[in-house]
Structures are given as structure tokens and as C-alpha cells.
């Protein structure tokens, strides 16, 4: 008995408060049957990494529209690795120009979702790529 659920953290790093996407996605993940922990806006990378470990999530989804993703996303991935939680998948979304993709993938992000990505498409990616652990 019991059932393994996918646990997702939706986090907004940095000072940008545009949380429409983060909130819509949180709802959408809930409707897809995931357990979602939403951090609210204005989180530091340190807060996000620590919360992800306390909550034992499978994946952290970062949303940033301010252009600070170049610093903030890699910072979260790095902190997770340093704290022995490199197995937590990190993905990102927001206003992210294609020229920054490489920098983010190199930092350890597994996917980047940009404006126009559909909710179903994002959920599908999660279902395919995030397996509840053994």
C-alpha cells in the first residue's frame, strides 16, 4: 500500500515578483497529481536549496522574468550539489534568451521552458523525466 508521488518545488528566486507563471504552474502540477511546494516570491538561492532538501522534492522548478537567471539558476544548482542533493533535478523557466541556454545546461539544469510552452507539455516533460525515487 502507499503510493509514490512526484514532489515538486516551484520557486521564485530573486527580486522579480511576476508570479503569474509560477502560480499557474503550481495549480497545474497539483491537477496533474503532483505534490507541490510553492515558495512564494523573492527567495534567495540559499533559501530555495535548503527548502528543497527539507522537503525532499524530486525536482525544483525555478521561475525568473527579470534577467537575473544567469546568476540565480546556476547558484541553486550549485548549492544543491554542495549540500549532497545533486540528485534533485533543477529546471527553469521565464524570459530566457536562447543564447543563455548553454550556460544554464552547463550549470546542471535539465530543462528550460520559455514563453509559449504549454502546461500539458511541461507536465509531460515532468512525467517522462522525473521518476519517483526507488
Amino acid at each position, binding site marked *: *500500500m*502507499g*503510493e*509514490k*508521488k512526484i*514532489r515538486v518545488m516551484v520557486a521564485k528566486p530573486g527580486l522579480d515578483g511576476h508570479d503569474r507563471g509560477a502560480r499557474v504552474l*503550481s*495549480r497545474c*502540477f*497539483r*491537477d*496533474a*497529481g*503532483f*505534490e*507541490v*511546494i*510553492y*515558495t*512564494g516570491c523573492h*527567495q*534567495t538561492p*540559499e*533559501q*530555495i536549496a*535548503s*527548502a528543497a*532538501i*527539507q*522537503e*525532499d522534492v524530486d525536482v525544483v522548478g525555478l521561475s525568473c522574468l527579470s534577467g537575473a537567471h544567469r546568476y540565480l539558476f546556476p547558484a541553486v544548482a550549485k548549492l544543491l550539489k554542495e*549540500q*549532497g*542533493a545533486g540528485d534533485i533535478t533543477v529546471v527553469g523557466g521565464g524570459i530566457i534568451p536562447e543564447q543563455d541556454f548553454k550556460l544554464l545546461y552547463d550549470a546542471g539544469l535539465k530543462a528550460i521552458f520559455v514563453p509559449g510552452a504549454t502546461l500539458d507539455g511541461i507536465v509531460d516533460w515532468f512525467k517522462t523525466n522525473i521518476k*519517483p525515487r526507488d
Partner: protein
Amino acid sequence: MERVKKIKSGDVRTASRLIRNLEDGMDEARAMMKHIFPLTGHSHVIGITGSPGAGKSTLVDGLVESFRKKDKTVGVLAVDPTSPFTGGAILGDRIRMQRHAEDPGVFVRSLATRGALGGLAKAVGDAIHIMDVMGKDIVLVETVGTGQQEVDIINHSHTVIVVLIPGMGDEIQAIKAGILEIADIFVINKADREGSSKLRREIMAMLDMAPASAFPAGWRPPILKCDNAFEPVGFTKSLEEMSQTIENHYQHLVKHDLLGSRVHRKAAMELNEAIRCSVLDPVLSALAANGELERMVEQLMKKDTDPYTLAEEIARRYLKTAP
């Protein structure tokens, strides 16, 4: 038992994973609890409950701050409902506590209620044990006080706080009766709102009706007021008072040798839950797996038999001492 050692040393990642495995009902995790249980008994467990929108998370956040000022380590278990339609959940209590995320003396863990088939109180009880063994001085359990499951969860605590807010209509009635009876402290939150004195009178009237025996060793639940969280000065003062009252209650339990009765209540509860997990769940799973459960339902629909007869048959099959 490397992992038990890690948990004892306060390792968050190991503890959090174990809580998750328990939520997921993994056998191996249950086995681990046999080694955790004997190490428990350190924490002061505080249950906080109240209707949705009563501002519980904000109070918990404030209490965490106030306990941290006294240099106590804190664990928080925040329970939120699972959507019955999708099986998913948004666990939002944590948002209000995120400022403590970087404090190593604070461990916040969110839990979803998941299925209705019991087990929730058990997972929470186990999580309390784990935080206890991690060495947390205080464990705060936050849950919506509207169902039996939540009453069961709250039964795990030494000190029970019921949070109410004025102006929500028949506030007292909305809270599950079982919770009012076990309240040790009432908090009127957002007390600057209209209806605050009326609510206070209602709680007083209710307490006046209770027999003296309802107040162990004379502890009549105090009714505290908490200022609006948007007024930082008053709010901080309210929380200092609240954490002091919590401490007083704990001292009262210790002084009158009542801690034992709370632990008794908790132990009875846990035994209850553990038996359910070990006895009922396997029976139901077995019946469901071989299709018998569904066949019995069909029989009932045709009125071929009744649920009482069927239950007795099952009991005879599985229990040695069945009638």
C-alpha cells in the same frame, strides 16, 4: 543503522527522505521506525489547529522566531489537504515560514493528507518521532481542524492550540467538537477585527459549561488574543505571550505529573494507528488484489447479503479470536 545515526546527528536529508518513504508507505521505512521509536521523548510537541484562513501558518512562523530567540531548535510539520479529484496538493504553509529556511535550527516539512484511508495521523506521528530523534526541542504540528483525521493528528501533541478568528460567523461550530475538547490554549487571531469580544465571550461560555474534571489539575485553557500580523510590534508581543503560555502549559504538565497522561494519549493513538496499518491495510489490500472486494460489493448491490455478515466472515478468516 547508519541512517538512524545520521538522523540522531540531525541530518536533514536523511530525515526528510525517511519521512517521505513513510508517507509513501514503504515497508523498509516502517522497519526503520522500530529503531527510531526507542530514542524518542525529547521534544515538546505542540499542535496548532483551526479553520482555513485562521492565520495558523503566520502564527507558526512567529512562534518559530520566538522559540529561536530562546535558543530552542524547532521542527515544523505542516499538513495540507490533498485534492480528492486529482490526488495532487499544493502545500502552501511553508511560504509563510521561508524566512527560516536558512536557519539550521529550523526544519520545516510539508505533508499532504493523501488518501482518506487513515494512515495520515500515523505518518505525522512518525515524522514527529523523527524530528524528536533529530533533537528538536520543539515540534510544531499545523493542521486544519475540520476532520477526524486532524483530531487524530492533534492527539499526538502535548499542548494543543486552537486558533479562531472573529467575524467568520459561527466560528466555534465550524471546528470539530473533538478538537475543542482537547484544546489547552485558545488563540483569537486577528483580534483587531470586529467580533473579537463576542468570540471571546462564546469561548468563555463554552468553557463555563465544562465540568471541572475537564481541566486537568485546574488548567483552564487561557484565551489569548493575537494582534494583526501586519502590525509588527503588537504581533511580536502577542507571540511572546503565546510562547510563554505554551511553556507554562508544559511546566504545568510536568509539575502535576500530567505529561504521562499526554504521552499515554499519544501512545494509545499510535498503537491504534499501527494496528490499523498492520492488520486492516493488508487485509483490504489482499481482498482488493484478488478481486474479492469488488465481488462482495456486487453481492451487496444485489442485496444477496449484508455488509455485517461479510465483515464477520472476513474476521473469521483472518483473526484467530474472531467470534
